């Protein structure tokens, strides 16, 4: 009954989607690990990134992959400014306030998008939108293969930043020990904003990789954030490797669920996993922080 010729492409497809989920979750888990908050504006900011890629393409003819040079740095700047100018200032150091501030931000951003772009879904047309490549005998969309490679590269780059640079060490130090960080001369407000900026830059990269095979609408972020949140819980709150592995697992589960249960029920598996993790291993697969 189980035909490997159908299952293998499905698994590969799931891995490519999962890598993108992982990228979104990476930003979420980084921000959680350092700032100890769930960024409710994550989905809205992914949407901003997607509109950025769409706008650059529609109005300036910039290819989504060329937009990698523009959108992630711009998203980094937006994230840095949001944390430093609004979230940090409005929260007065209380976590529950940060939660509400990010929730409020997401509402404002989404409604601005509705106002400017209406609720139409928009896509980017590229000459390679329908190209496929053969991987292990399965034909996969070229854009998804690129997205997979790009997401893994980004994860590797983030890992290098976190482990090999003073910025990364300062981020990890601040995540656990704010007073100690201040006493070695770390500018804590700056590093908080850098962490937020990096997390949002991940969304910018995800937006560039996603746009050629996906669409954008003002609500597009919701589905991603729900899944990213599941991944963060599955992988362990604040764990980088956990987010990566969790993302890939969720992608495959979703693809196989779609294959065996039908497209509309495909996501059942994700939330089944979510519930099982919460019951049996609430710290996640790799329950350590960054």
């Amino acid at each position, binding site marked *: 009954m189980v035909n490997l010729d159908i299952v293998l492409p499905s698994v590969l497809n799931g891995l490519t989607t999962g890598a993108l989920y992982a990228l979104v979750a990476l930003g979420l888990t980084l921000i959680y690990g350092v700032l100890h908050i769930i960024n409710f504006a994550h989905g809205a900011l992914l949407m901003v990134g997607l509109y950025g890629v769409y706008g650059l393409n529609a109005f300036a003819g910039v290819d989504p992959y060329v937009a990698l040079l523009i959108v992630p740095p711009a998203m980094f700047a937006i994230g840095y400014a949001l944390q430093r100018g609004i979230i940090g200032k409005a929260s007065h150091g209380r976590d529950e306030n940060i939660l509400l501030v990010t929730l409020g931000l997401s509402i404002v951003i989404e409604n601005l998008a509705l106002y400017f772009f209406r609720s139409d879904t928009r896509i980017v047309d590229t000459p390679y939108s329908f190209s496929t490549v053969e991987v292990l005998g399965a034909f996969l969309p070229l854009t998804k293969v690129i997205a997979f490679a790009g997401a893994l590269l980004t994860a590797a780059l983030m890992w290098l930043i976190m482990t090999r640079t*003073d910025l990364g*060490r*300062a981020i*990890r*130090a601040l*995540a*656990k*020990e704010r*007073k*100690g*960080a*201040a*006493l*070695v*001369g*770390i*500018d804590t407000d700056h590093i908080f904003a850098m962490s937020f900026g990096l997390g949002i830059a991940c969304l910018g990269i995800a937006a560039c990789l996603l746009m050629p095979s996906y669409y954008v609408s003002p609500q597009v972020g919701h589905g991603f954030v729900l899944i990213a949140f599941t991944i963060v819980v599955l992988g362990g709150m604040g764990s980088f490797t956990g987010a990566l592995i969790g993302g890939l697992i969720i992608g495959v589960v979703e693809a196989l669920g779609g294959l065996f249960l039908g497209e509309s029920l495909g996501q059942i598996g994700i939330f089944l996993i979510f519930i099982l993790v919460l019951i049996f291993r609430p710290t996640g697969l790799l329950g*350590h*922080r*960054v």
Partner: protein
Amino acid sequence: MLEVSGLRAGYGAVEVLRGIDLSIAAGQIVALLGSNGVGKTTFSSVVTGLMRPWGGTIRFRGEAIGGLPARATVARGLIHVPEGRHIFPNLTVRENLELGAYRRGKPNREANIERVAAVFPRLKERFAQKAGTLSGGEQQMLAIGRGMMAEPELLILDEPSIGLSPLLVEEMFALIRRLADDGLTILLVEQNVLQSMEIASHAFVMENGEIRLSGRPAELMEDPELQRSYLGLA
């Protein structure tokens, strides 16, 4: 090196420091003594910029530093090793030391790591280990080592002997004397009056947010009040 006058500070409406005058000359070990809750840690926090002063002046090497944030005082070489260590438990011992030079001493980082390793051979064995897995004494060494990484002009050691076994306490005080012999200026904030007096060249005794007594340790030890309240002598 450090001149503090009329320093006042507190939390909310509660005044903890009620006009502190204190000065430290270069090359000295100065002890700031007093029992729990008299404001010693508040004092070090205000001097390093973790808290803002309410009034008074703080001058460090001639420059007014009152109200500057910690990153600015660290950049000037005023290094505070806090009570409770506050090392980074999720980072390796080596990474902790590297971050000690985050704001100051970066050009000599590798050489200074070697220097710290020479002072604390036990830390060197644990370089690749997560700092959170160290014993209390090792964590205290790491906290001091991390402070040394910033090439301090003045090192504030807040309760370095707290929570250590008597043997380790001995070792800690011997180490502090050694650091001072190498030319480091140290403000030793302690409850441990006897051992601090032994190595300090000047001591201040704090009570209820004020400096109660100050002078050379040998003179202070003769003070009947100090004998009664801190040494348990009638």
